[in-house]
């Protein structure tokens, strides 16, 4: 039922996007493709942080893995596009599993440090084996539009299609995953790990799984980004990218897939907009920091006006916010408002962290959620 509804929305969105794409000029198509690719990576990260309660400031590394996998597969094996994307996701997912095993033992700043290390260290691989990875200048490759679209079909439009459709598929899969038992267990874990463990959930296993899903998403994002830019370079996957992804997650709305879409849009479109704005408003090229300052201002303003991110703000404006005091997530010892629970307290069933199992227990969904959680308990408990 849920799957059908999510799929229905996605198909509708796909139709709209495809129709709109053909009206765009090629640079906008290119940007749309970038946005879609970025949304996938941000969505993966928001699941990891907002839902499973772990942190990663090294997600650019998984995009690096996805991107380079794609470049190498296209250049050397010339696999079909869909297969390349899936393979890139798998490679990144395996890397995520390895990272996840380490992550399962680490908490808070230690986990952040470990993932940070990954983001700093991995691009060096490209320099170490220059013959394979092309060093500083990376790898250039080409993809072509499929024959049935005709010879004059714009490559950028095809890239935008591929990226948008992939993004919608990933979002539908994630949305369903989050509403499955695994998703609910992740939330239980996030809200109170001890309680979750007492309830019989296999904490380490769940944490690793979250890392795998999240890394695979980043891998798909990196893969599509590479296909859009037609090159991969270490410079595309710096630590700055990892931080930007984190920023996009918080900015869009922590833990919200819809927020990931906002985050992706901001990450891709705001910096060039500010650059052009600065250029056309009399700032000389010497003041190259204007866009950076502008981006910082956007960040500050959004966090002040919408503490629960843009999606939280939109929900509040539309009156859709769920009235509950729950829905915060603790990262770095700070409590962050979750995107879909931005309004003040009404029923006050209790702070999620104090609740035995999950923020789902808050509000008027208590019964269903607890039932689900108990389902999880018996399942895991009998092992």
């Amino acid at each position, binding site marked *: 039922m849920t799957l059908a*509804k*999510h799929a229905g*929305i*996605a198909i509708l*969105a796909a139709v709209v*996007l495809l129709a*709109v794409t053909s*009206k*765009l*000029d*090629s*640079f*906008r198509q*290119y940007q749309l493709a970038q*946005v879609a690719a970025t949304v996938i990576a941000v969505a993966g990260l928001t699941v990891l942080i907002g839902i499973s309660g772990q942190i990663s400031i090294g997600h650019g590394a998984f995009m690096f893995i996805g991107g380079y996998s794609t470049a190498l597969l296209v250049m050397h094996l010339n696999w079909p596009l869909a297969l390349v994307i899936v393979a890139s996701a798998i490679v990144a997912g395996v890397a995520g599993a390895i990272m996840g095993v380490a992550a399962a033992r680490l908490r808070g700043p230690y986990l952040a440090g470990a993932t940070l290390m990954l983001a700093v260290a991995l*691009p*060096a691989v490209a*320099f170490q084996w220059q013959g394979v990875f092309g*060093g*500083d*200048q*990376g790898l*250039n490759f*080409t993809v072509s539009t499929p024959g049935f679209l005709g010879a004059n079909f714009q490559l*950028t439009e095809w890239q935008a299609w591929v990226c948008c459709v992939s993004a919608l598929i990933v*979002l*539908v899969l994630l*949305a369903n995953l*989050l*509403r499955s038992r695994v*998703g609910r267990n992740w939330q239980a874990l996030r809200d109170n790990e001890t309680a979750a463990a007492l309830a019989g959930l296999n904490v380490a296993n769940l944490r690793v799984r979250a890392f795998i899903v999240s890394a695979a998403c980043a891998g798909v994002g990196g893969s599509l980004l590479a296909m859009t*830019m*037609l*090159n991969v*370079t270490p*410079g*595309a996957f*710096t630590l700055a990218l990892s931080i930007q992804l984190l920023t996009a997650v918080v900015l869009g709305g922590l833990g*919200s*897939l*819809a927020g990931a*879409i*906002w985050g992706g*849009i901001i990450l891709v*479109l705001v910096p060039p907009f500010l*650059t052009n704005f600065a250029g056309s408003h009399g700032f*000389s*090229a*010497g003041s*190259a920091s204007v866009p*950076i300052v502008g981006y910082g201002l956007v960040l500050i303003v959004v966090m002040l006006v919408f503490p629960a991110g843009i*999606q939280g703000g*939109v*929900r509040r404006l*539309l009156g*859709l916010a*769920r009235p509950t005091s729950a829905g915060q997530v603790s990262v770095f010892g700070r409590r962050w408002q979750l995107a*879909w629970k931005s309004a003040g307290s009404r029923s006050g069933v209790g702070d999620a962290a104090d609740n035995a199992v999950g923020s*789902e227990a808050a509000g008027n*969904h208590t019964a269903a959620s607890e039932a689900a959680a108990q389902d999880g308990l018996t399942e895991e408990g009998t092992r």
Partner: protein
Amino acid sequence: MNRSHRLGFAPLAALAAVAMLVAACGSNSSSSSGALQASAPGVTAKTITVGSTQPLTGIAAPGYDEIAPASNAYFQYVNAHGGVYGRKIVYKYLNDQYNSSITTTDVRQLILQDHVFAIFNGLGTPTHLAVAPFINAEKVPDLFVASGCACWNATSSWPQTFGWQLNYIREGKILGSYIAANFKGKKIAFFYQDDEFGLDGVKGLSEEIPASQVVAKEPYNVAAANPAAEVGTLAAALKASGAQVVVTFAVPAFMAILRLSDLGLGYNPTIVSSSVGSDPQTLAGLLNTFAKKSGSFGTSLIQGIITDSYLPSLGGNDSWIQLFTKIHNQYIPKLPLDGNVLYGMSVGYTFVQALLKAGRNPTRQDLVNAVNGGLPQGVSVAPYAYSSGDHDGITGAFMAEIKNGVISPLGPVQVTDTTATGAVTADNTAQPPAPTSGIP
């Protein structure tokens, strides 16, 4: 019903709305009047728009961020004196931070959205390598890449791309032949950037310097997370090798760090540097900044560096330097009059040469054909190599030494080619003086 993870309509609708909005403000149109027509993308009756990618911030910015403003100053001078057949040059350069992934997006913006007539002087070897395939696929002229990589001379795969400055193989050969003649029997080491820039340079050097004299080769990674630590280790290795002469193919920031590391180690070899990293004012400024010193500290650390130059010496007083000093003082008085400004104006001059030759109502192909037909020697000390089968630019340079912060010539102009067997020979043809109008 749980709203928490549903794909809301709102952001999707917003995405679609953004997409439609940007669709509305696409496509340009241009009108024609009189004999001057909108003959190509980026060319209107009144303007010619050209684009570039430049490191205005980031590791490569010190010094190089002056190049595009200097080119622009020259274009403004041309615009103020009648323009190119009456058209004004509009120069749009975007900051790529010397990061290939940003270059990739910037170039797409310039070509697909801003519809520039040509890409001019895109800066950087790794950065421009990432975009040359795209620029050529779009059949956009890619003139005078700001990099001496020999790779720009690829007329069959990249027919739109042209180099300009002395390429690193030629430069390596010219430096190498000087070293072979003047440092016989000395121990020599190479310090170079671990990419096409450094590798081409080492290739040229190795063709002239006997391998038995080379005691160490230390490449650095320009994207190193901690440049000081990276260079510190390499400098120690250079000292340990006992090299008496260190030849460098490095960008200014890494040159400066190397000099400071040497100072810390008490190691004082003779430095022979590629012109890329030897602009005295840039280097002295960086040394002062990095070491938090002022005054003559920087200048004293670069005294005696041996280098080469393919443009007139700033210390001299020839007609070119007079012309560029005048333009500098009028349009960009706040920037130092250094090698980077000289470079930017010189390459701008060459571009105007090509534009004029391309004709009154040029197409993109006309511009490419113009350079393929060869350009007369102008601002450079040696002739250009341009022909339909050769997209290399300047073919030679003179050796020089840094004395009191100024590049001072050590001999006549040397020219060579990029082959292993091609000799390095003196070129005694006189460089033509600058036109009195300042316009080719």
